[in-house]
């Protein structure tokens, strides 16, 4: 135990190795499909880094993903698998949208009210699932999935209510008031040549720091982690496990709801009718896994995913299927999932060396 901590003990190393494997598998597949992998990957990189505008776009893509990632990571730390971030995201976005259209308030207050509404909606959506689990013993994975779809159709229903549906054509709501937008000042948007540049990233980073603090530095965080480690031991130690779990599920939902608000108030400005799930919640699972369930790790994982998603959208310009990004991401997670095997192998070799 007195041994110096080797770099092979750090999660980041295995994540890095997994990322390399991900790109390797992607390259093999591209080559097999007769596509020049080098060209595709250089497009992926230049598509993100060659202009400030592109970098800004990658950050815009990343902001909601950091938040859904935080949501899932927080749930992981407390022993719950929040597969319902998708629905909480939708409800958050919807709440912010209704408040953003219907209320008229001065700018900073309007933004605050929208954000609080979104977080409350996400928290409630997550807490109901917690309540069902605690009071009725209903499997949370099942209710999360049900609530994802209820949110999906509820959003589509609300979008079509005349009071907020946009006039004229288009299956979408009206635009939210300018006072509820979180766009960066005109000067920055001009300078970066990106009209959608927004403060979502700042909100995401603040949220990550708060969640980090909550988990690691507060009594509540200690209780939640204790329940996540061993529910029975925590209860024996005097922690109300049911209450802790519900609190955790509500906070996790609030983060996903905030993600929905950021997407709406930063980028889209309105909600369109969904044809299929938008996947922000599910992509959040990936972000949480790559970030090793660490709130600060989620910032980097979210930026990575955002860049991949935005860069991937450029691949169609060179007739390369953008789905290679999904394959790379899937491979990365798969390797992260089995990475403890590498760890064992390396540990074994170290022991043999002594």
């Amino acid at each position: 135990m007195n041994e110096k901590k080797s770099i092979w003990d750090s999660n980041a190393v295995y994540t890095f190795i997994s990322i390399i494997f991900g790109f390797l598998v992607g390259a093999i597949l591209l080559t097999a499909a007769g596509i020049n992998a080098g060209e595709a990957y250089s497009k992926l990189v230049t598509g993100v880094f060659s202009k400030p505008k592109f970098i800004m776009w990658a950050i815009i893509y990343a902001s909601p993903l950091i938040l859904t990632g935080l949501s899932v990571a927080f749930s992981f730390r407390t022993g719950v698998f929040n597969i319902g971030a998708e629905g909480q995201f939708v409800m958050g976005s919807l709440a912010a949208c209704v408040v953003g259209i219907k209320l008229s308030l001065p700018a900073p207050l309007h933004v605050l009210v929208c954000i609080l509404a979104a977080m409350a909606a996400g928290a409630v959506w997550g807490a109901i699932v917690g309540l069902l689990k605690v009071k009725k013993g209903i499997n949370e994975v099942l209710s999360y999935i049900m609530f994802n779809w209820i949110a999906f159709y509820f959003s589509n229903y609300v979008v079509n209510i005349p009071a907020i549906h946009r006039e004229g054509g288009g299956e979408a709501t009206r635009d939210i008031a300018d006072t509820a937008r979180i766009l960066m000042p005109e000067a920055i948007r001009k300078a970066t040549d990106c009209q959608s540049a927004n403060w979502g990233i700042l909100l995401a980073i603040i949220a990550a720091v708060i969640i980090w603090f909550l988990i690691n530095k507060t009594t509540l965080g200690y209780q939640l982690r204790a329940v996540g480690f061993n529910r029975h031991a925590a209860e024996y130690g005097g922690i109300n496990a049911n209450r802790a779990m519900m609190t955790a599920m509500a906070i996790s939902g609030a983060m996903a709801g905030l993600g929905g608000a950021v997407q709406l108030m930063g980028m889209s400005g309105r909600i369109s009718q969904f044809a299929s799930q938008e996947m922000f919640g599910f992509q959040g699972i990936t972000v949480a896994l790559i970030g090793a369930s660490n709130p600060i790790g989620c910032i980097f994982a979210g930026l990575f995913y955002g860049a991949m998603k935005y860069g991937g959208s450029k691949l169609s310009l060179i007739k390369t299927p953008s789905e290679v990004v999904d394959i790379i991401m899937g491979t990365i997670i798969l390797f992260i999932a089995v990475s403890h095997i590498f760890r064992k192998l390396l540990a074994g070799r170290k022991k043999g060396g002594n």
Partner: protein
Amino acid sequence: MDTIIRDLGLLINATLIATPPLLYAALGSCFSERSGVVNIGIEGMMSIGAFVGAVVALATGRPWFSFFCGGLAGAAFGLIHAIACVTYGADQTISGTAINFLAPGLAVFLCKAMFDNSSDTPPLDTASKLPKLFDGVFPAGSFMSNVFSTYAAAYLSFVVVAIVWFVFYKTRFGLRLRAVGEHPKACDTLGINVFRIRYICVILSGFLAGLGGAYVTLATVNQFRPVVIVGQGFIAIAAVIFGKFTPQGAMKACLLFGLCSGVKVLASAGNKVSPNLISMIPYVVTIIVLVLFVGHGRVPAANGKPYVKSK
């Protein structure tokens, strides 16, 4: 009276068409979960099954063979899940999530690579689609035709329920797979090969999920599109939890979901109620039923825990 019978026929028909993909996938999920391996990759396995089914049908024009190939494609991803979770003891949820990115991603990637960067395959002609039972025996649009003349693979799915039930409760393999999901260590002590049983079950779960996906492209829709599998895999998993991890329970839950989409089809024709509200019904009903009648579901005891052989 006549319209009631006709509507009833249409409702049964719509239910019969919507249920099988969920049912095949749910039966697959039963195998995996009961053997102690959580498989949330069912969704992805359905996608790849849907794609491979459609492509093989386009190439060969042989629907049943294509249906089987769709199953095999799902089984291949079942194998990946088994290697990761059973051999390498990976977190089952993480591996399943990975498959939900890998399999649909690969399906659309291959589709674009094969069909000139289009994410849809060309449509199948009628001869390449799965056949209907008693085709042309009953007058078109009649009650009998609606109830008895839909896709043969739809009726087959209910036969598979009976087979799976038999395997689970009347065979030695079934007893073992259920035991492995409850107490792998005890099974190992008795000389049952825990790893082998879990491998078989997880691969079977992929195979059945692949069949469910292939049913969608070869029967319901006549081509592969990225949106043909949107959430059915997750609904199938929900049905299994709802049905308390038994094949017969999962069937009832799938029929409930199928019936609700049947109601949706009929009601949206009337255009009186918002189709979005009607679409919500199955999910709301599931929650209500659970709260009122079912309550505590018992998960197989060893579910989600990798089994590590002690030395």
